């Protein structure tokens, strides 16, 4: 399961670029700092590879096993 801590996000877009399943996109809601942050479009397709978490400079994405379909 991918959990995005939206208030740590600075909208660099690295997670969106490197997601192998292309299921992350920058959303339309702003966080506390006024930045748009990524949202998952299709959680069923997530393979919990944690590449989004690997590339996040801020450590805003945490990945745990289970939850979504793995």
């Amino acid at each position, binding site marked *: 399961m991918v959990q995005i801590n939206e208030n740590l996000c600075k909208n660099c877009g*690295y997670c969106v670029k490197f997601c192998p399943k292309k299921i992350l996109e920058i959303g339309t809601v702003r966080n506390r700092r006024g*930045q748009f942050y990524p949202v998952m479009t299709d959680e069923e397709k997530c393979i919990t590879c*944690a590449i989004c978490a*690997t590339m996040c400079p*801020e450590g805003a994405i945490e990945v745990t096993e289970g939850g979504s379909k793995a």
Partner: protein
Amino acid sequence: MAEYKRSSMIAESPSGYCPGCLHALATRLVSDVLDELGQGDNSLNVISVGCSALNLLYWCGDNLSVAHGRAPAAATGIKRTNPERLVFAYQGDGDLAAIGLSEIMSAANRGENFTVIFANNQTYGMTGGQMAPTTLIGQKTTTTVYGRDPQTTGYPMKMCELISTLEAPVYVARFALNSPKGVRDAKAGIKKAFQAQLDGKGFTFVELLTNCPTNWHMTPLQTLDYMNTNTIPYFKPGVYKDKTE
């Protein structure tokens, strides 16, 4: 299947770095490695001057902020008086390759038993994007407005190659942080360097190629492509010296 949990070594707040800065990723990698080694409470981060000084508000472990370029000298003293601690200097390229060149070469040559994490973004980020010793040929900065000209300013300095010619260092490696593979390699490299220090092997040096979206005047995603086409062909990633076995 993979898991990732944010380290407790970094603050529960956004870092001071600009959006998309791979410096923040470098800091995060160090914190992750310390967590994996279980050395968080035993570590000491020697923070230099530059963007790396933003770690003062972000790093939750023990740290020491030292004069410009003198992190290896301070780390030498700390490590000699506290040999059981995991000591690492976290430096940028303006700090390490310009004003601190003498300190880093001397510490490496003495084979002091600590680790240097060197974040190379080819510019002076904190002071507004002036030319650094590592700035690429033709790269525009505020002090080389027509691009760096080797006739007047010389060539970009390759620190890994320089340090690997010395006898004493046991591990010298360079990694690029602009791809998931590079980040994973870098994490393994940092872990190897820290483990070598814990085993008392000697001086270890890890260079991380990073970006500077603000001073390169690019979006974060553009900097990743720029690194692929310009930075990585000149600063070639790889392990330059490994005597840890």
